[in-house]
């Protein structure tokens, strides 16, 4: 029974903790700006992003939460493009934490309401199995998202993969654009296929 209380509490707290770390991280970057105007603008944007996040969390508004999160991300990388040097490892750590926060939020939204209900032992075991799988996948994906670019950087610095030359960058960019376009078009192709089942979002009211 203790686990049934601890798990939802921990699941709810983890995304918030990750978000707090992200916000503190961005603030840390902002206060290290030399220019007074940039500092002021950075603080205002940081405050606005936090207001959006707080509003989104308090009133359960996903759109406000997303807006605050995107603003926070843009602020961090904007600062590094315009004013600060970009170190790969901290930037990667920030980006990975950012992505992990989003995935943790999805996991929490899925599992916390279910854990708060009165469950049979069988259902509880199955749900715990699902949560463990989700957490394991997230850990692996987070590790990959961090280690893959680090490994690529090592290869590039060692000269095995010359990613710093313009032609290589262009080829790589072309390949990535193709992948992304493919990913973007997949839902459209899938939608054109037969839809044998009703949508999940259809009105569940089953009045005769």
């Amino acid at each position: 029974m203790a686990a049934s209380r601890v798990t939802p509490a921990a699941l709810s707290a983890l995304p918030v903790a990750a978000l707090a770390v992200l916000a503190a991280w961005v603030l840390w970057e902002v206060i290290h700006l030399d220019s007074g105007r940039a500092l002021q603008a950075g603080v205002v944007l940081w405050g606005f992003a936090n207001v959006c996040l707080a509003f989104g969390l308090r009133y359960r508004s996903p759109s406000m939460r997303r807006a605050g999160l995107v603003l926070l991300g843009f602020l961090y990388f904007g600062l590094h493009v315009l004013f600060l040097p970009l170190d790969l490892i901290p930037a990667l750590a920030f980006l990975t934490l950012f992505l992990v926060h989003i995935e943790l939020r999805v996991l929490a939204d899925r599992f916390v309401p279910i854990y708060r209900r009165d469950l049979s032992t069988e259902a509880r075991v199955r749900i715990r199995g699902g949560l463990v799988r989700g957490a394991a996948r997230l850990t692996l994906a987070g590790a990959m998202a961090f280690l893959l670019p680090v490994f690529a950087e090592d290869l590039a610095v060692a000269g095995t993969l010359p990613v710093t030359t313009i032609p290589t960058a262009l080829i790589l960019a072309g390949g990535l654009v193709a992948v992304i376009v493919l990913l973007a078009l997949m839902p459209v192709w899938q939608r054109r296929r037969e839809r044998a089942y009703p949508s999940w979002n259809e009105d569940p009211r089953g009045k005769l």
Partner: protein
Amino acid sequence: MRTPLSSGLSAAALLFLLAALATRRWEFILLALAPLAFLAFGSLLPPERPLVAGVRALSRDRLQVGSDVDVTLTLKNEGPPIDLLEILDALPPELALVQGTNHAVVCLPSGESLSLTYTLRPSLKGEYRIGPTRLRALDPLALGVEDGVAAEPSPLVVAPVMEDLRRAALGPRRTRPWFGHVTSRQLGPGLEFWGIREYVAGDEVRRINWKASARLDRIFSNVYEGERSGDVVILLDARRESAVGSATANAVEYGVRAALGVAEHVLASKNRVGLIVQRDVLDWVPPAFGRKQLYRILDHLVHVRAGGEWPYSFVSWILSRYFPRDALVVLISPLTDRTAPDAIANLVALGYDVAVISPSPLGIERRFVPPGSATDVAYRILALERENLLSQLRRVAQVVDWDPSTPLALPLRRMKAWPRPA
């Protein structure tokens, strides 16, 4: 099917790539790899369409408002293993979940089964469908989903609560030539002693009054008041303007409860009962006897929802053409319609006995309004207006002002006779 998060990750990778080209900094190309790593990892094991068979079992398919029904949903995975399967047994909002869960996210290996058990408590009468069971195979990283359906919907009929009117003296005043429980003003078979008369050939031996015969030296027979039955027509006002209160506690819902209680009580006394409902359509059940008629009336009452604006003139037309003229008309209405007094007077003029059961809209509304001096003054003014209206009606009909927070039997029991003797 890809999710918005998948598109978001693609967009983020594209932005990093554009930033790398715009700023000519190779670090951004490497940063683009992070969201792509998530996308690639999610694409390695994409969710497949769930092939799950489902069976839903209900502890009962007919129940009363406020009673519980246990639902057991058994699902068996007949397809490939599913890492994360979201299960949602769709429920109408009127059915409250009191125990267990109808929603779960589980890992379901191939060939394995899962049972979800939950208890529902309906808050409103009606005919509902539980289900269908919606399934969604999820990618653990929320990058793709596949939807499916398992168990088909199960019907559930929720009957309104019946008012207990066992002790209420409620019945028709005018009788018809069928045996029943209403004492008529004519001699005949019955239990109420009326007098004696001289024996005539054909009288039953058990009706001979032996004491009187011995004293007067002639044979006398007892005669009794004939007990017969009559007709009652329940007229339920379920128009939109009568639905004062919340979705579950409004004058129409209370009216339905009262109508069912009156029908049960009158049918139990061997009278005929008919029903007219003013709602989106003018719905009626012709008068008949017995338990079957109660179920017919119940079936009509289950579907009553506030709506429509049928005036009383249409009801009078249906009454005069399809229902017997000597029936007792029991009008169940909150009397929010200003034409109600005239309509009732017209019914009386047409020759009907009319009784009015009025669920008080003031009593219902007061529960939803916070107390305060202004509210109290407004309530007192409205109560005076209502009392005035009821006094007008009492000149032509029996009127019961019912505060629905109390059982209907209480105001009915306060009445000396029902209906008022002519």
